[in-house]
């Protein structure tokens, strides 16, 4: 059994027609969850103070002030706000925080947060790449500062580099951040030489066109040895499903079973040092069919 954090408010973040990060993605995610052993919980609303674990208060206030009363406001080439966007982004932060609270207080070992907008591109003072707040980075800070953990790890398998998470946790010696991503591709960061202020960031770029077999070799040789050595007390996942072969926004060739393999290995590693505690948050994934089957594979392992 795994906990599933969701809320109708995530559908209140509406992007303009034709935008790939769209409300329909939630329906695709829900379709992938059908029949799985999950217990549904409410993704509660965080407040702006929670956001300040990673972002300056002035930035959070700026985002809040930019929310339009009707229609859309555009923050960058990709990133839009609708009237419900702030509520949705705060529920993403709140849902991830509640999921961390739940697994660290023994309610369940594993949780999935079916949130949007995604968060891993949001830098300290910059909304970008569909993202407003660094949901997973804020959740990591919560585990460290509120629950008193000393070693947290984040695995980001979204096809785009988690530049925001990297930016927010660059100087956080208590959190390992490991990311695989297609490179070169948006946002341009994520070279292996980018290692964080304390050598606690692991970037594993993947070449365009590479497949699940390549990914498995990279994880087994680059990311998992570092993750195991880190001995995390909690593993967070930035779960983007846009490395799937069918995804329109990237050029990797992963299949649904690759997500099942990856999740299984992460859960095994969590079993060694973290008491099996894993919290996964939705990031990207823009082909609805691929998203359904990938979420089914990923959460199917979490809920097993």
């Amino acid at each position, binding site marked *: 059994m795994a906990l599933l954090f969701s809320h109708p408010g995530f559908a209140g973040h509406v992007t303009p027609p034709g935008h790939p990060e769209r409300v329909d993605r939630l329906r695709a995610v829900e379709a992938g969850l059908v029949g799985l052993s999950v217990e549904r919980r409410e993704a509660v609303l965080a407040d702006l103070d929670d956001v300040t674990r990673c972002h300056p208060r002035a930035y959070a206030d700026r985002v809040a002030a930019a929310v339009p009363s009707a229609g859309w406001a555009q923050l960058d080439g*990709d990133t839009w706000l609708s009237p419900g966007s702030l509520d949705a982004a705060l529920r993403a932060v709140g849902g991830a925080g509640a999921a961390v609270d739940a697994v660290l207080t023994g309610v369940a070992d594993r949780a999935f947060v079916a949130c949007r907008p995604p968060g891993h*591109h949001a830098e300290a003072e910059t909304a970008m790449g569909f993202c407003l707040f660094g949901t997973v980075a804020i959740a990591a800070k919560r585990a460290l500062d509120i629950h008193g953990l000393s070693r947290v790890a984040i695995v980001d398998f979204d096809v785009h580099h988690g530049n925001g998470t990297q930016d927010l946790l660059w100087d956080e010696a208590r959190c390992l951040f490991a990311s695989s991503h297609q490179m*070169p591709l*948006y946002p*341009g960061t994520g070279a292996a030489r980018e290692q964080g202020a304390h050598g606690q960031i692991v970037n594993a770029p993947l070449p365009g066109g590479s497949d699940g077999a390549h990914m498995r070799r990279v994880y087994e040789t680059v990311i998992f040895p570092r993750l195991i050595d880190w001995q995390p007390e909690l593993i967070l996942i930035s779960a983007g499903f846009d490395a799937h072969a069918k995804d329109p926004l990237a*050029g990797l060739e992963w299949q649904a079973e690759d997500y099942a393999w990856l999740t299984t290995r992460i859960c095994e590693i969590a079993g060694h040092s973290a008491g099996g505690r894993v919290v996964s948050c939705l990031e990207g994934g823009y082909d609805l069919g691929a998203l359904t089957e990938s979420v089914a594979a990923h959460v199917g392992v979490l809920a097993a």
Partner: protein
Amino acid sequence: MTDKAVSEMSFEEAMAALEQVVSQLERGEVALEQSIALYEKGAVLKAHCAAKLKSAEEKVELIRAAEGKAIGTAPVQGL
């Protein structure tokens, strides 16, 4: 970047265009939604450069082979 069709580009033109594409992707100048299209253009340019290189290598091999043959078939003095 030039609007010339990739298939009509010289090696130098394609390399310059490819370097520009990679630079744009690495500097994060492109929106997330557009970056895959730019990546795909880069892949076409890379394939074109690779094909041009292969073709040039084959020409060099032909010249080497021809030179070898010419030497081998030249009349040997004294025979």
